[in-house]
């Protein structure tokens, strides 16, 4: 048994497979169980969002942005609204900004809950998935109460909001914050510090900081590598400069800095920080009219703008070119999942195929915004 002849094998993961979090095909070259190369094939969900935008007026684009990262619609709308407002040169009222921040942070928690729940599911832990969805449901109820929709809201408009907040909104949000804090500790006990989960995720898929920056990683994927960078702090938009919160980063607590567990844990800790922001904002919503600044006709002057915001997945950038007409000349969305996913080949070579599932899950990709 000195020399056994081995051959490399090509396996297609997806496009229909639960571990790929959507319709994504990974062409994996394997040497036994070891990954030699991963080639992602994307585009199965391509709807030509950018072409559609060119035929729409500026406000009509907002429902389309909802459908990019469909578990995170509020943050998508927020970035687009800020970009168009910048082109128009309008300043929205304090009340609108406060409500937007609360909504964006609630949505961040909801999105992270999906990321965490499905990640546990990838590792074979089904119970945390259900726990996460129970909590997410409570956030969706708040959204439903506010604007009638549960997933795709069309809530944040250029210059304002589609609805003012209902009477007992603040009460409901405060109840949620109070309810959710101990649930994070419970989640940590159930999943984060679970021995089996740590074995599956620590020291797997290590992403060094310089590779992350050069490869365009952002959000928890970048922060998991120990880079303390959050657009809400480092390039503030809306009114985030008013709030006090920390930027959790990966520290290699149970393994190496930048491994899957670090990326996962950044999300858990970010939920706590989001709760802090919500707490600071919810009692200080000023009085005012949320419809006052909505322009009757959105017709920006000739120009272009690139606005980036921190969504739960990372840096979402809108590059909008206006030619002075009612329709945008060009809208380009730089989606965080797109850039994060492009790193997968670099960091999963040499690991087992079972680890590849964990590495992919740790990026928290949503195919809706990769394929657009």
């Amino acid at each position: 048994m000195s020399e056994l002849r081995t051959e490399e094998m090509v396996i297609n993961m997806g496009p229909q497979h639960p571990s790929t979090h959507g319709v994504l095909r990974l062409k994996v070259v394997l040497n036994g169980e070891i990954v030699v190369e991963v080639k992602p094939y994307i585009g199965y969900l391509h709807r030509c969002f950018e072409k559609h935008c060119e035929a729409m007026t500026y406000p009509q684009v907002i429902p389309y942005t909802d459908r990019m990262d469909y578990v995170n619609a509020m943050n998508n709308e927020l970035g687009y609204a800020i970009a168009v407002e910048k082109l128009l040169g309008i300043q929205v009222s304090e009340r609108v900004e406060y409500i937007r921040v609360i909504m964006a942070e609630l949505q961040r928690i909801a999105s992270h809950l999906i990321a965490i729940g499905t990640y546990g599911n990838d590792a074979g832990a089904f119970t945390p998935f259900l726990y996460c969805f129970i909590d997410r449901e409570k956030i969706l109820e708040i959204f439903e109460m506010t604007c009638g929709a549960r997933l795709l809201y069309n809530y944040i408009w250029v210059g304002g909001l589609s609805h003012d907040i209902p009477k007992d909104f603040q009460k409901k949000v405060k109840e949620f914050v109070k309810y959710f804090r101990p649930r994070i500790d419970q989640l940590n006990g159930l999943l984060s510090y679970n021995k089996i989960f740590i074995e599956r995720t620590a020291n797997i898929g290590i992403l060094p900081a310089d590779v992350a920056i050069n490869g365009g990683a952002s959000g928890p994927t970048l922060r998991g590598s120990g880079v303390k960078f959050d657009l809400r702090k480092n390039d503030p938009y809306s009114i985030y400069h008013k709030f006090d919160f920390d930027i959790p980063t990966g520290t290699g607590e149970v393994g190496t800095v930048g491994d899957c567990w670090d990326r996962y844990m950044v999300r858990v800790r970010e939920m706590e920080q989001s709760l802090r922001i919500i707490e600071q904002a919810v009692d200080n919503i000023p009085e005012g009219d949320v419809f006052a600044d909505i322009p009757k006709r959105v017709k920006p002057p000739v120009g272009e703008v690139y606005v980036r915001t921190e969504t739960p997945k990372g840096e979402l950038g809108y590059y909008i070119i206006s030619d002075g007409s009612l329709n945008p000349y060009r809208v380009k969305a730089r989606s965080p999942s797109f850039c994060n996913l492009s790193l997968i080949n670099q960091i999963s070579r040499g690991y087992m195929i079972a680890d590849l599932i964990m590495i992919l899950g740790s990026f928290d990709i949503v195919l809706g915004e990769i394929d657009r």
Partner: protein
Amino acid sequence: MDINEIYNKLKAVFGDDIIELKTDKPVDPFIIVNPEKINAICYFLRDEESLQFDSLSCLSGVDFDKDNLASVYHLYSYALNHKLVIKAIVPKEKPELPTVSDVWATAEWHEREAYDMMGIIYTGHPDLRRILTPEDWEGHPLRKDYKVQEFYNGMKVPY
């Protein structure tokens, strides 16, 4: 660093390859450069001590005007916290310019997207294929003069 300083710095090194600085509002200011030199300029922007543009935020293909396409680079420096927009304009008859995927790895997929959507060809790119549309799709959808093909593999396309 201010965009005027960056412009002067680039102008000192690359001379006429740095074509124009546009700062009129509400435009994000940008610098137009010679497309043939884009790779060398990007290496300089990344490695120069006082600039350190260590990341490419976004790369977009744009249908610039009737005869030209543009490749737009949004750069950001994590080290020094400043931004820059540069544009390289190429004619539609010969939309070719060098790749920057060796400067920033993230450009690889962005350039594939710009090729797919706009038909800009990045010479020296390691794997320039369509990324979002199918491999046998015809045309480049985000061009303003794009006409959708009537049939794709026997299926009627416009609905």
